[in-house]
C-alpha cells in the first residue's frame, strides 16, 4: 500500500480523449461510404489521415503512464484476453491500425499512382513507393478496390465501437472504484467519442480546406450537415450524462459509496467546477450554439461550437479518470490532485503528445493527395503539357469514381 493517491495521471486522461477522436473521425470519414451520404465525400480522405495520425499515438498515453514501458511487447507475448480489458484493447488497437493503413492504401493508391507518373524527381519516386509498385488502373480493379474500401470501412466502424467501448470498460470493470464501476461507462464513452470526432472533423475541415486546399473554400453546407449530426449526438450525450447523475448522485437511488463519492468530489468538492461548468456547461453551450442556423453555416462559429464540445469532452475524461481516483479506498476524506507541469504524468507529456500528433498529421497532409480538386488540377495540367488528352479523360473518370 502506498498513500492513497491518483495512480493514473494526465496521460491516461489524454488516452481516451485521443482514442475518442480516432473513433469519431473514422465514423465521419465513413459517412459517404457506409451511409451513402455523398455530400461528405471531400471528408473521406482527410478523415482517414486524421485517424491515422491519432491512432499511431493512442497507446502512447498509457505507455507514458506505465512505469516499465520498455516491456510493451509483453502485451503481445503474454496477452491476457479476454479477461483483461487492457489486453483486449491491445488486440483491438493493433487490428484497427492495420485496417486504417489498408484503408489509406486502397483510398490513395489510384491517385498516388497517377501522380507518380506525372511528378518528376524524388517526390514521384515517393509516390510510386507508396503505391507499393502497384500500377493497375483498369475499371474492374478500381471497382474491386472500392468494394474492399466499403467492406473495410464497415469493419472499421465496428472496431471504432469496440475500440472506444473497451476504453470505457477499462474503467467500468474496476469495481474497487465506485465512481468507475458503472454500466453506463461504455455507452457514455462511445457517444462522447463520436461527438468529439465530429467536432474535431468540423475544425480540421474548416482550417485545412480554408487555408490549404486548392480552392481555399469551405463548403458551408457540409459544415451545416456535420453540425446537424453533432446536435443529435450532443443530445444523446447529455441524456446519458443526466442518467449518470440520476444513477450516482441521489443517496436514495444508489449505494452509499457512489453517492458519497459523487457528493464529495462533484457536488461540493475539488471537481465541482470541472463537472458542472466544464463538462455539462460547455456541452450545453455547444448545443445552444449549434441550434442557430447562422452559426451552423459559418465555419468559424461552427468551429467555436465544436471547440466547446471538445473541451467539454476533455473535462469528461478528466472527471472520469482523475475524479474516480480522488475517492479513497481505505482512508478517509478526498484525495487532492493537481497536475504537474513537468515530468512524469505531467502537462508537458500531454502537450508533447498533441504536438507529435500535429507533426505527423502535417506530414501526412504534405505527402498524401487528400484534396481531390488539387489532384485533378495537377493531373490536368501535366497532361496538357504532355498532350495526353486521353489520359486526362481517364483521370477525371477515376476521380469521379
Amino acid at each position, binding site marked *: 500500500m502506498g498513500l492513497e493517491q491518483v*495512480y493514473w495521471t494526465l496521460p491516461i486522461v489524454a488516452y481516451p480523449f485521443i482514442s475518442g477522436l480516432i473513433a469519431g473521425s473514422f465514423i465521419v470519414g465513413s459517412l459517404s461510404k457506409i451511409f451513402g451520404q455523398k455530400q461528405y465525400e471531400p471528408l473521406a480522405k482527410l478523415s482517414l489521415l486524421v485517424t491515422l495520425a491519432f491512432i499511431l499515438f493512442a497507446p502512447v498515453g498509457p505507455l507514458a503512464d506505465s512505469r516499465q514501458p520498455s516491456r510493451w511487447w509483453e502485451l503481445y507475448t503474454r*496477452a491476457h484476453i479476454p479477461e483483461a480489458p487492457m489486453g483486449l484493447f491491445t488486440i483491438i488497437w493493433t487490428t484497427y491500425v492495420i485496417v486504417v493503413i489498408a484503408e489509406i492504401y486502397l483510398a490513395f493508391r489510384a491517385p498516388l499512382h497517377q501522380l507518380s507518373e506525372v511528378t518528376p524527381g524524388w517526390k514521384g519516386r515517393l509516390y510510386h513507393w507508396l503505391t507499393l509498385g502497384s500500377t493497375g488502373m483498369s475499371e474492374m480493379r478500381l471497382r474491386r478496390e472500392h468494394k474492399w474500401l466499403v467492406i473495410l470501412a464497415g469493419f472499421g466502424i465496428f472496431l471504432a465501437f469496440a475500440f472506444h467501448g473497451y476504453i470505457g470498460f477499462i474503467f467500468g470493470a474496476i*469495481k*474497487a472504484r465506485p465512481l468507475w464501476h458503472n454500466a453506463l461507462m461504455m455507452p457514455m464513452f462511445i457517444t462522447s467519442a463520436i461527438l468529439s470526432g465530429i467536432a474535431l472533423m468540423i475544425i480540421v475541415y474548416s482550417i485545412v480546406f480554408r487555408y490549404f486546399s486548392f480552392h481555399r473554400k469551405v463548403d458551408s453546407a457540409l459544415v451545416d450537415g456535420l453540425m446537424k449530426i453533432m446536435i443529435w449526438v450532443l443530445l444523446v450525450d447529455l441524456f446519458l450524462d443526466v442518467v449518470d447523475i440520476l444513477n450516482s448522485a441521489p443517496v436514495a437511488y444508489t449505494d452509499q459509496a457512489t453517492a458519497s463519492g459523487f457528493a464529495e468530489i462533484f457536488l461540493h*468538492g475539488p471537481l465541482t467546477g470541472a463537472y458542472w461548468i466544464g463538462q455539462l456547461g460547455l456541452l450545453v453551450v455547444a448545443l445552444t450554439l449549434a441550434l442557430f442556423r447562422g452559426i451552423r453555416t459559418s465555419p468559424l462559429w461552427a468551429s467555436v461550437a465544436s471547440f466547446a464540445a471538445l473541451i467539454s469532452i476533455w473535462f469528461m475524461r478528466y472527471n472520469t479518470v482523475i475524479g474516480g481516483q480522488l475517492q*479513497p479506498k*481505505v482512508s478517509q*476524506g*478526498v484525495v487532492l490532485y493537481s497536475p504537474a507541469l513537468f515530468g512524469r504524468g505531467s502537462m508537458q507529456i500531454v502537450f508533447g503528445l498533441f504536438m507529435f500528433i500535429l507533426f505527423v498529421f502535417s506530414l501526412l497532409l504534405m505527402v498524401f493527395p487528400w484534396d481531390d480538386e488539387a489532384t485533378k488540377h495537377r493531373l490536368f495540367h501535366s497532361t496538357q503539357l504532355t498532350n495526353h488528352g486521353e489520359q486526362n479523360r481517364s483521370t477525371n473518370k477515376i476521380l469521379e469514381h
Partner: protein
Amino acid sequence: MAEDDVHVEQNNARQMGNQESRREFLKQALKVGGVVGIATVIGGPVGAVKALASTETKQNATDGSATNWEGWEDPQLNVNDGWNNWDKILNPDNLPIYHDHFDEIKKVKPKHHWVMVIDLRKCVGCQSCTVACKSENNIPIGYYRTWVDVAEIGSTLQTSLGNTVTANGTYEQQIKIRNIPKLCNHCDNPPCVTVCPVKATFKRADGPVLVDPRLCIGCGTCVNACPYDARYINPISHTADKCTLCVERIDEGLLPACVTTCVGRARIFGDLNDPTSEVSKLLASNPVQVRKPEMGTDPQVFYIGLNGEISTENDPEAENLIYTYTMNTNSTAYQQLAGKSLLK
C-alpha cells in the same frame, strides 16, 4: 491560345526555380535523414539491450523519491544465493498458477490452503507487524505491505454524571479505540489478477497472490483494481508490488514475518486444509468477518471481532481514523485532522 502558352512558359520557369529549391531541400532532408538513421541504428540495439536488461532494475538513480534502499542491487545478495531468482522466490515447487478461472484451484486439490486469521480482541496497535514486514521485505520508504489503522469511535458527551470533571463542565467519554491490521487479503477471487494485461500477477494454487516483477509493465491497473488498496507501485523496481504472505518463508516452513513478531498473537497463520491447525479451529469456533464482503472477492484473511463499526465514510461524528498510513497529506481528511492552520 496565346494565354495558354504564357501560362505554360510561366509554369516551366517556376519548375526550373523549384528544381533549385528542391535540390536544396533534398540535400537537407538527406542530412536530417542521415542523422535520424544513425541515431536509430545506434539507439535501436542500445534500447533493445536496455529493455532486455530491465529485469536488473538499474533505475535507482532516476527516481529521487527512494534513494536509500539496499536490496536487489546489493552485490552481496546475488542470484546464486537465491536472491533475485524470482523463479525460486515466487514458486520454488512449481505449483500450478492461475491468472483467471480461480474456481479451478479446488479441482487440483492443493496440498495447502494458507490463510491468516486476525483476532482484533488481541491487537494492541503496536505496529510491530508493520516494522517487521518493512524490514523483512525491504519495503521502500512511504510504502507498506501491511499496516495497522487506528480508529476512534464515539464521542465525548457533556453530562451531569460524567467522570471527567473540568472547569467548563462534566463530561463522559464514550470512546473506543479500534486497531485494525490490514494487508493483502489474498482473495480467492482476486480482481487485481484478472485485470493484468500481461499476466504478470497470479494466484498460486496454495493461496498467495503474487507479482512477477520481471513481467510487470507497471500500468497500475491492478493497483486501482484492488478494493483494499493493498498494492502499490514500487518506486525502485517500477513494478506493482504487494504482500506475498512472505512466500519465501512459508515455503521453508517458517511463519510470515508479521505473524512471528505479533506481541499479542493477534495474527495467526496456518493451513485451512489441515483441520487440526489453529486457524481451522479458530474459524470453526468463532464468528469471523472479512473486509468488504460486498465486493465478492472472497478474502482469505479473516477477522475476529470486526463488527461493522469501522467504515471508510468520511464522517468525523461516526469515527475518526486517528492513526493511519494510508492517508495522503494532500487530502481533505488530513487537513481536517491536522487543522488547516497547523499545516501552514
